[in-house]
């Protein structure tokens, strides 16, 4: 075979935790679209639970089926080192997305740059409310990309806008009721609050409800998107959302795994032959992120996007 096409039955699997989370839906669509272009089969797999041992078990079960590659969102990085390496040893190309397992031998890692998102959010907040003011964050300690979005923003503010004061920092763990409660309290304690940054959409829904009820004029920015926050963007209640371009994660994720599995088409100028590694290795792909505002909001309605598409 001299062209980039899948052999009969060649399968690529996408494996995630909390598999019913809507975040994965566009990722998998991108994955599938790329796979179809090359005549490959795809499977969406993983565990419905937020449970690392279950995700590892499902990953190992994926391995039993001997797919050509697995695109995985490792719930935690280090526990995946050994399973990923075992898969690689068994000729299964593993690519990580949105969360990484940097110490494993995975072929590639695709993500939006959480640092860039944080930096963008900080600059946007300052451009809207000025460089002297109060801001707050909600967070979800323990999930690395969310942590990064928060800590990077705080660090960036401290370094670049010393007059921006962090007045509230509450853990709401993606729970809208907890976010409602926390935001209401922060608003009480800080009547002069200017902006709030939220690393995911679940908490944003609760936060907006509290801000609306308090009739307060706080600038809300968050990452990810849900239909409810999208409506709030349209209504002007949320200033903007940063969306990590899920489609690209899936699309690039597939390509990385597929190319690695078909590396025979490629003979680069390096030592891969003598050292015995796969020549198609991409340490890091930044898939960029999109900025959702009132103007472009209509393009980010997942329900509209999914009309007529097969989620599986």
């Amino acid at each position, binding site marked *: 075979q001299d062209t980039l096409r899948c052999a009969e039955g060649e399968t690529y699997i996408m494996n995630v935790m909390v598999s*019913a989370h809507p975040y994965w839906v566009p990722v998998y669509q991108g994955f599938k679209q790329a796979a179809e272009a090359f005549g490959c089969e795809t499977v969406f797999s993983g565990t419905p639970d937020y449970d690392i041992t279950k995700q590892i078990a499902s990953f190992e079960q994926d391995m039993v089926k001997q797919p050509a590659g697995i695109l995985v969102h490792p719930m935690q990085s280090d526990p995946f080192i050994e399973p990923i390496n075992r898969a690689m040893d068994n000729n299964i190309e593993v690519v990580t997305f949105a969360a990484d397992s940097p110490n494993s031998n995975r072929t590639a890692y695709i993500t939006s740059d959480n640092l860039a998102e944080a930096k963008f959010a900080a600059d946007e907040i300052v451009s809207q409310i000025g460089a002297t003011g109060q801001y707050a964050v909600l967070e979800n300690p323990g999930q690395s990309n969310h942590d990064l979005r928060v800590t990077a923003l705080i660090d960036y503010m401290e370094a670049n806008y010393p007059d921006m004061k962090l007045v509230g920092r509450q853990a709401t763990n993606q*729970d809208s009721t907890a976010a409602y*409660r926390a935001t*209401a*309290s922060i608003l009480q304690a800080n009547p002069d609050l200017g902006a709030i940054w939220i690393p995911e959409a679940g908490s944003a*829904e609760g936060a907006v409800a509290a801000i609306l009820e308090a009739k307060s004029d706080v600038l809300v920015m968050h990452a990810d998107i*849900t239909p409810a926050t999208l409506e709030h963007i*349209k209504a002007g209640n949320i200033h903007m959302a940063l969306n990590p371009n899920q489609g690209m994660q899936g699309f690039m994720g597939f390509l990385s795994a597929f190319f690695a599995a078909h590396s025979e088409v490629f003979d680069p100028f390096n030592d891969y032959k003598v050292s015995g590694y796969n020549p198609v290795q991409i340490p890091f792909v930044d898939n960029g992120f999109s900025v959702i505002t009132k103007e472009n909001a209509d393009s980010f309605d997942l329900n509209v996007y*999914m009309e007529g598409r097969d989620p599986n």
Partner: protein
Amino acid sequence: MELTANGPRSRSPLIKLLKMRETGLIAIILVLCIGMSFASPYFLTWVNMRAMVMAFAVEGIVVVGMTILLISGGIDLSVGSVTALAMVIAGWLFLQGIDPWVASAISIVACTGIGAFMGYFVTRVGLHHFIVSLAVMVIARGACLLMTGGRPIGLFTLPPEFKFIGQGAIGPIPLVIIIFLIVVLTFDFMLRRTTAFRKVFYTGSNEKAAAYSGIRTKRVIFLTTTLCSALCGVAGIIYMARFGSAQPTFGLGMELNVIAAAVIGGASLNGGSGTIFGAILGTVLLSVVSSSLALLDVSVYWQDIIRGSILLAAVSIDHYLNKRRR
């Protein structure tokens, strides 16, 4: 009015108050609030109080159902997912073009049906509430996912009269709080005073003795199980009106919170005792602690430790006060 579930007495109101099981909790909450009002100038403001009550009002409706179920000797782990399912069913029907009020009614009926389904497995098949409601917790969550594809349903097009349930106010008081108060007062009264609900206590206290008193205990348990799910349905509809969306992942872990509130308020996990009033105080306690930590901007890394410790201390003090009084 009688304020302890057990024991009709007629004494002076003050002595009655001091003898109430709930007095200790009230005192603890008051002490916390007084402390907070010194610690933060914002605590005692109307807006803060309002926000605090809004934060627990809807869940409080579920607490009512859980308390009654606990008194009858049952337990329900499915409350979180059934509440979510209520939102999802109503939201989904609304998007199919059905009138939101009709959609809500259908959804509440469906939740009631889920309760009846659990009640059937408990009373007819003979399984334990714990395991039945655990299975239903998983099934109902699955139904939420199936109906939404895991994606929240945005319901911005809900008519304003409907959203009014969750977002409106009568005078200065949000309608949510009014509904909450009506539910709480109604069931508190019924549980203390009505013949029908007295049977719930008998059944939970000693199911066999209740059967030997001619009470159809299975029916009682069936009904309390059903009622709890029905109230989850009501809560789900209010949440939907309030948030303007239906979230398939809503209410994860709600069951522990709700059971904890009831237990802190004096409900026994072995059945036979508990009051709505106490359970609501338990809810208030949990809520005041959380809100206070946020208001004081306590570091997130310390919050859980402090929250857990206050909970343990409060329950211990309450227990001590109750023991001394008896």
